[in-house]
Each structure stands twice: as C-alpha cells, then as structure tokens.
C-alpha cells in the first residue's frame, strides 16, 4: 500500500512538472509567433519602399530618353534646313548660269548678224557686251568646274618617312624608305637631305625618285643627316613629311701597332678612332673564335688563351651600325710582349727601327738641345716599357755586352723621372758597374742593395716577374743561373725599365715562353 501511495505521489509531482513545462513552452510559442509577426511587417515595409524607388528610377529614365530624342530631332531639322538652303542656292546658280548661257548665245547670234550687216561700230558695241557676258558665264562655269574637280582629285597627303633600319647604311650611303598612307595618286617623290652641322645650317640636296625608297650616296662617314620627302602629282605637291635623322656608318678605326702588348692570357689593344667626330662604341673581334667584345673607349684588354696566334680587328659603331673591320693585328700569346715607350726615353737615348734596341751615343748632347717632356727621364738615361697590366707571371730577356753599364728591372708608372732607377721605392733593378779590374753588381730598391759577387758576367739577363707571389727575379739566361730575387708586394701594375749608365747599347727580347727554372 505504501508503495502504491508513493507511486501516486510521484505521479502527481510528475504531473505538476509536466504542466509547468507545458505552460513554459506555450509561453515560448506565443513569443515566437509574436516575433514572426514583427518580421513579416518589416518585410512588407521594405518591399513597399523598393517598389517606390523602382518607379521613380523608371520615370527618370524615360524623362532622359525623351530629352535626348528631342534634342536629336531639333538638330536634325536644323541640318536639313541648311542642306535645303545650300541646294537651293546651287540650283539658283545653275539656273542663272543657264540663263546667262542663253543670253550670250542670243548675243553671239546677234553679233554674227550685225557682222554680216557690215556696221562695224555697232558690231564692236555688241561684241563688247557679248564678251563681258561670256566672261561671266565662263567664270561661273569655271567655278562649278573647279568645284567638281576638287571633288575628283586633290594633291597628295604628306608621306611618312621611316626611321633608319639597322644595317642599311654604309660609310658613304644611306638607304631611306617611306610610305604613303592614302589612296592618293603620286607621280614622283622628292627626297631632301642635308647634313646636320653644329654651327651653320648646310645646303640641302634633293633626289627625285618614283619608288618609295632611295639610296643616297656620296655622303660623309659617321655623319648625321636630316631627311624629308614630298609627294607630287598633277594637282600639286604634298606637305613635307616629318624630318627623320639618319646616320652614316663610321670609318674603320686604325689599330696602333706600337701601343699593343700581350701576355699568355691577355692582350691590350689600342687604336685611333678613325673618325673626327665621336662614335658610340667599338667592337673588338677575334677572327678565330668569332668572339666580339664591345668597349666604349679606344682600348681593350681582351682575355686570350696561352700559346696561340690571334688576328684581332676593331670596328667603330654608331646608331647607323658598325663600320668595316680595321686592318687586323697579329697577336701571339707566347710569353709577354711589349714595346718600349718612346715618350719616356731620356733625350740621349735613341732607338733602333724595330723599337727593341736602345743606344746611348758617345756624343755629348748640350742640355739646350735636349727636349724634356713630363714623362721623359731627365737624369738617368732610361726608358720604360709598356705597362704589364695582367696578373700572373711574365718573362723577358735583355741582351748586353761585356762593357755596358746598365740598369734593368721594373718600375711603377709614376716613378720619379728625375731619379735613378732603383734609388727609390717605386723601382727595382739589377745594376752592372764596370771597373777596370772587374764587374760589380747591385740589386737596387730604395737605394739599397745586398752584397753579392757574381763570377761570370751575364750577357743575356732573364727577368721574371710574378705579380701573385710578389717576386722579381734575375737570371743568367745562358747558364740558367739564378742571380737574385726581390720579394716585393706590388700594389700596382709595373712597367719594365731599362737604362744605360755609360755609352753602349742593350736589346730587349720578349714574346719568349718563360723557361721552367724561372718560376720554381
């Protein structure tokens, strides 16, 4: 029984819970319905507003279209009236013309009659009148006629001249092209040209051609020309085309043989422009490999391979294109090769024709007869070789005789020209002094030399320069005997240097492959 009571109690409680939950839910549902109702109202309002906006826009659009078509109609009407007016006046002119023709026809007949009547005075009067009327008729006919002709044919429009095509020019000629962008008939073209000069304007020349291109010849090399063209037909001459600037190709440069030097890995080539006016750039060509190097100045250090022979030539380049090849120079990359710089030679030194032997003559030159320049040696009777501008190893030999007192070595470009080789920090040299009893040798730098004796006088001295190791070595080349090595850190490239301390001569031999023993 207790169980039954409890069970009923819990049921009642449960029921109560259920009821309250149900009430809550009902409340929520009512809320939701409310909310939904609100949403609907909002939706309807928005829809209404949109509808109104749409209507306004449509109206506005229609108004605009109407205004535009109205304006169009007005303009059209105006133009039509104008046209009508013009046609009317033309018609009236034609009518007047026709009337005048009739009148003059009558008058001419009258004149003929009168002429037959043989009253000359009367005849003259009538003819004068006839002439006047005729001239009027003719004038009006001519005017009409001219109007018609103008419709049928006009003078050509200006041609369009093309810019210069690459590789179309030579040293003395230019190939010019142009076009006509209309259906005009053209009988011939006339091409005008004149060189662009700095100060005075030059005279123009002209050429008459039938085609739309022309080659103008007998021009100057590396020169700028102004060109323009006109087209002519029976009606008249077209306006001139725009002026175009063309350039002839430069003359080929000239390689300066005595200013070129080489070593196993490179060559330094120098040349003269070959043109009075500046060019844009130059190209250096190796004929064997077809390698081309472009440079802006008149010299080029070009990389090569050791132990070969090369043919090198140069072209000058401007907007018009490249010039012909200069005469080629042969470069051999065996050993190091350089010429002696004549402009550094002391006035008492003279050179052989091939440029490799120097002489110090016996005769005393008076000081006044000596011409010194900035780069010449003034005390030491010395000369520099061309700069060796490539890192690595270089070797050359100097041939002397038993008696010659000489200095042989290397020096920086700015070595003092009023000092003796080896007496300063910018030069290193081997020096030979001859006394009546023996030979003395010094290896000078900064005025200092080690104390050395050499028992066999070298008559062929090998000089080995190694920029990377910082060494300058001297050898008795005939005996393969090492004499001395300077250890120096070269902070710049150096020139070979040679001097004669007493009258005598020495000969430079280069372009020789360095013997193995020189670079251990």
């Amino acid at each position, binding site marked *: 029984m207790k169980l039954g009571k409890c069970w009923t109690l819990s049921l009642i409680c449960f029921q109560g819970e259920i009821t309250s939950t149900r009430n809550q839910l009902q409340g929520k549902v009512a809320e939701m319905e409310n909310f939904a109702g609100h949403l609907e109202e909002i939706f309807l309002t928005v829809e209404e507003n949109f509808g109104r906006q749409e209507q306004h826009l449509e109206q506005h659009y229609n108004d605009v279209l109407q205004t535009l078509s109205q304006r169009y109609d007005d303009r059209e009407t105006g133009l039509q009236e104008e046209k009508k007016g013009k046609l009317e006046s033309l018609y009236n002119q034609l009518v007047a013309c026709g009337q005048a023709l009739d009148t003059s026809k009558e008058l001419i007949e009258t004149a003929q009659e009168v002429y037959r009547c043989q009253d000359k005075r009367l005849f003259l009067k009538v003819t004068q009148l006839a002439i006047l009327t005729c001239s009027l008729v003719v004038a009006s006919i001519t005017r009409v006629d001219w109007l018609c002709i103008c419709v049928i044919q006009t003078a050509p429009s200006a041609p369009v001249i093309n810019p210069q095509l690459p590789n179309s020019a030579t040293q003395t000629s230019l190939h010019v092209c142009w076009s006509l962008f209309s259906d005009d008939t053209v009988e011939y073209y006339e091409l005008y040209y004149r060189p662009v000069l700095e100060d005075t304007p030059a005279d123009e020349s002209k050429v008459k051609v039938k085609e739309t291109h022309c080659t103008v010849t007998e021009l100057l090399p590396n020169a700028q020309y102004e060109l323009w063209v006109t087209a002519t037909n029976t009606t008249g001459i077209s306006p001139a085309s725009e002026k175009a600037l063309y350039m002839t190709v430069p003359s080929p440069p000239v390689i300066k043989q005595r200013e070129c030097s080489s070593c196993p890995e490179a060559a330094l080539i120098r040349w003269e422009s070959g043109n009075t006016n500046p060019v844009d750039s130059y190209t250096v060509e190796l004929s064997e490999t077809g390698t081309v190097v472009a440079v802006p100045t008149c010299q080029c250090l070009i990389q090569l391979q050791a132990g070969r022979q090369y043919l090198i030539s140069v072209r000058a380049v401007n907007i018009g294109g490249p010039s012909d090849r200069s005469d080629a120079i042969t470069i051999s990359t065996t050993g190091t090769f350089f010429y002696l710089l004549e402009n550094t030679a002391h006035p008492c030194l003279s050179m052989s024709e091939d440029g490799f032997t120097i002489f110090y003559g016996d005769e005393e030159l008076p000081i006044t007869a000596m011409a010194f320049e900035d780069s010449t040696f003034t005390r030491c009777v010395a000369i520099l070789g061309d700069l060796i501008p490539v890192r690595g190893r270089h070797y050359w030999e100097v041939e002397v005789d038993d008696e010659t007192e000489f200095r042989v070595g290397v020096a920086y470009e700015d070595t003092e020209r009023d000092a003796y080789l080896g007496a300063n920090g910018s030069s290193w040299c081997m020096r030979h002094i001859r006394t009546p009893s*023996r030979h003395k040798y010094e290896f000078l730098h900064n005025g200092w030399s*080690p*104390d*050395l*004796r*050499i*028992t*066999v006088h070298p008559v062929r001295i090998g000089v080995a320069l190694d920029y990377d190791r910082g060494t300058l070595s001297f050898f*008795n080349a*005939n*005996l*393969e*005997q*090492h*004499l*001395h090595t300077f250890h120096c850190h070269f902070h710049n490239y150096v020139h070979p240097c040679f001097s004669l301390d007493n009258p005598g001569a020495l000969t430079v031999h280069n372009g020789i492959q360095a013997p*193995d*023993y020189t670079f*251990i």
Partner: protein
Amino acid sequence: MALTQVSSNKCAGGLQKVFKHDSIELKCKMKFAIYLPPKAETDKCPVLYWLSGLTCTEQNFITKAGSQLAAAEHGIIIVAPDTSPRGCDIEGEDESWDFGTGAGFYVDATQDPWKTNYRMYSYVTEELPKLINANFPTYPDRMSISGHSMGGHGALICALKNPGKYKEYDATVLAASYFGPQLDILIDQGRDDQFLSASQLLPDNLIAVCSEKKIPVVFRLQPGYDHSYFFIYSFINDHIKHHAKYLNATPHCTATQTSVQSDRPLGPDAQLQ
C-alpha cells in the same frame, strides 16, 4: 750492406730517419740521417747530400736547420752523414776540436794512424751514395751536394774533383784547375761570422779564381749573420730551391741545355763557415 734503423719521426708530412751501418771505407759503425719527403712514398726522388761542419754529428742538421719543409715541398731526399769515423780508438783523435773526431774534412787521409779510418771523401762520394741508392727510392743520376763550414768546403771539393783526377784538396786551388761540365754554385756567407773576421775564411780568393775560370758562382754576403745554425736555418730554403732547379728539371730540347743536364752529376752549393 745491412741498415739498422735507429729512429724515425714524422716531419713536414714525410719521415726523418736515422740509420746505422758498418762502413767498409771507414771500418767502423757509422750513422747517417735521411729525410724522406711525402713524394717518396709513391715515387723516386733526387738526393741532396748535406755535409755538416766541425764538431757536428748527423743530428745537428736535422734538428736545427729546418730543411724538412722545403725538402717536402720540392720532393727531395736529404742525406746528412756524420762528420768523421767514430770509436776507432786512434790516439790523439779527440785532442782538438778541429782535427780528428768530428773533423773528417771530407778528405781521405794519406798518413798513419789516420789513413785506415779517415776516408771521408771516399765514404761521401762512393760508399754512401751506393748504400742510399740500394735501399731507398732514388734517382741515382740525380744528386747534388751542399754543406756548411767544413762541410761547405767538402761540398766544393767533391764537386770540383769529380769530373777528373786531381790531387789537390783546396777548393780554391781546385777551382783554378777545374775543367769539366758547367757548374752552378751558390754560396752564402754571414758577414758577422767570427771566422771570416779572423781571416780563417778567404772567400775572396775563391771568387777571384772562379771569375777568372768562368765558373758560375753567386756569392752572397749576409749582413748580421754569423756562423751558427740560425744562419743555416735562414737560408736553407734558398739552397734547397737552388738544388731543386736541377734535381727536378725536366729534360730540355735545346742542344746546350741537354749537355749540361745529362753530364752534370752534382750541382754544388755551399754555405761557407
């Protein structure tokens, strides 16, 4: 001939060894030092013989001169023998420092009691090279000789004497009558060498004779340097390079050079005093 290794030390990538053997010329046990450069592991090498000065043994040069780096670089074997026979019990041999033990002078004695054992000239020019060539990877025809002080003189006389038969034993006199293939001699002399100032050394005489006989010599007077191993150490590189030029040279094709290379058995070089 049996060689016994006394010591071996790795040095400059190669091996500095000392060997002992029974010498036939000197009739006693002799030691010599030999430096084998890294190249000797795989290839034959030329040999430079170094003759030391008074009172030295085979040890001084190998511990004080610093020659191993240059030898390794140029791939040259350096052999440094002792300076005299030892333990021969000859009366008076230890009396003075510059005669007898440690003072063989690289000559063959002609008088008693020295002539049995004191045959350093023959040892250095005959026995030792044969021994070296038989036991080590060498080019038998590529050898040169150098030395310091007594050894410098020894080097000169060995070179000057070898092309022919001479009885004289003074380098200057030898030079005066030298007749043979081209030589190339490098001599360094310390200017502050006490023996020079004491006029015990007379390089000027040698130079004068060589100038006259046209024997190529480059003689360098080094300021501030004395007679010691510090002096040797400072210039040993130049000397090894001087030898390397001939020992490592590849045959040339020009006539004059071929004759010089193939005929030349020794390229002499000396550090006097």
